[in-house]
């Protein structure tokens, strides 16, 4: 038999064994198998293998699966669903470590508060502010020198100031 003819026919033998070959192609392959001992054996092998596979599937489908001892399932309760905030925190902390950010924010707040507490308060416009004056006699308060200096003048009880007192 021409070996080249066998190489051409051999791929069609599997289809012939599975009864998937029809028409002229089938007649060609059958004609060749009738005269070629090698291809006839190959066809017989395909038929045996196919029968064995079909029988195995049939046997497998008829097995009692309840006889199988399955591995035990892991016994842990399902996690409750995350709330909206938990999901947000999870999404943020998944990518960014929050502690350096919080530490930096705390340090910034401490710095701002510290500067605010340490800085000197602005000087009053009037550099001497009289809050209260009690005296034995009449008193006159005279602001002067652009508010930088103030005079409190005490008079004797029987003495009267010769200028109008500045209201306190």
């Amino acid at each position, binding site marked *: 038999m021409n070996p080249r003819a066998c190489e051409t026919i051999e791929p069609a033998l599997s289809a012939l064994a599975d009864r998937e070959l029809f028409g002229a192609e089938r007649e060609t392959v059958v004609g060749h198998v009738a005269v070629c001992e090698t291809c006839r054996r190959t066809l017989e092998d395909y038929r045996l293998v196919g029968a064995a596979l079909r029988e195995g599937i049939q046997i497998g489908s008829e097995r009692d699966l309840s006889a199988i001892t399955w591995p035990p399932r892991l016994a842990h309760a399902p996690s409750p669903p995350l709330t909206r905030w938990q999901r947000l925190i999870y999404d943020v902390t998944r990518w960014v470590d929050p502690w*350096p950010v919080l530490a930096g924010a705390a340090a910034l707040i401490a710095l701002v508060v510290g500067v605010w507490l340490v800085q000197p308060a602005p000087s*009053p416009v009037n550099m001497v502010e009289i809050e209260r004056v*009690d005296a*034995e006699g009449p008193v006159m308060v*005279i602001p002067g*020198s652009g508010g*930088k200096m*103030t005079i409190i003048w005490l008079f004797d009880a029987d003495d009267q100031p010769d200028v109008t007192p500045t209201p306190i």
Partner: protein
Amino acid sequence: MRRTAPSIRALAVLLVAQLAVTGLGWSQTPVNLTVQVIHASNTGTTVDPALAKIRSQLGSMKYSSYKLLETRPFSTTVGAKHAMPLPGGKTLDLYPYGLSGGGLELMVTITDGAKRLLDTTFRLANGATILVGGPAYADGVLIVAISGSF
């Protein structure tokens, strides 16, 4: 139990310590007061050269002579009381009792024996001066100049 990051705890301790130091430091603020005692009279026309800084204010008074009798600086703190004798048996009491609005809160009394000639409280800005005049002394009056720096 929830755990706090060590860095957060350290920052919290520093913040509390800073606030405590700042708050407690208020009463430890150094205060420098200067009291000048001046005798004003109409005897002569001299003005003590040491009174150059307040000469313009003295010029608005009705006296022709101003003599510096004493200059006494006080280095003190807020909350400390000081008493200073004045000529003629009078006494000046100084009590810096607080700091607010950028000024030193000061209570000043002048007594002459049992008589309270003056009892006043005021706020003195840094570098400002207050003059208290009028108590009779010799042939004129006493003027007390109080200035502060802090």
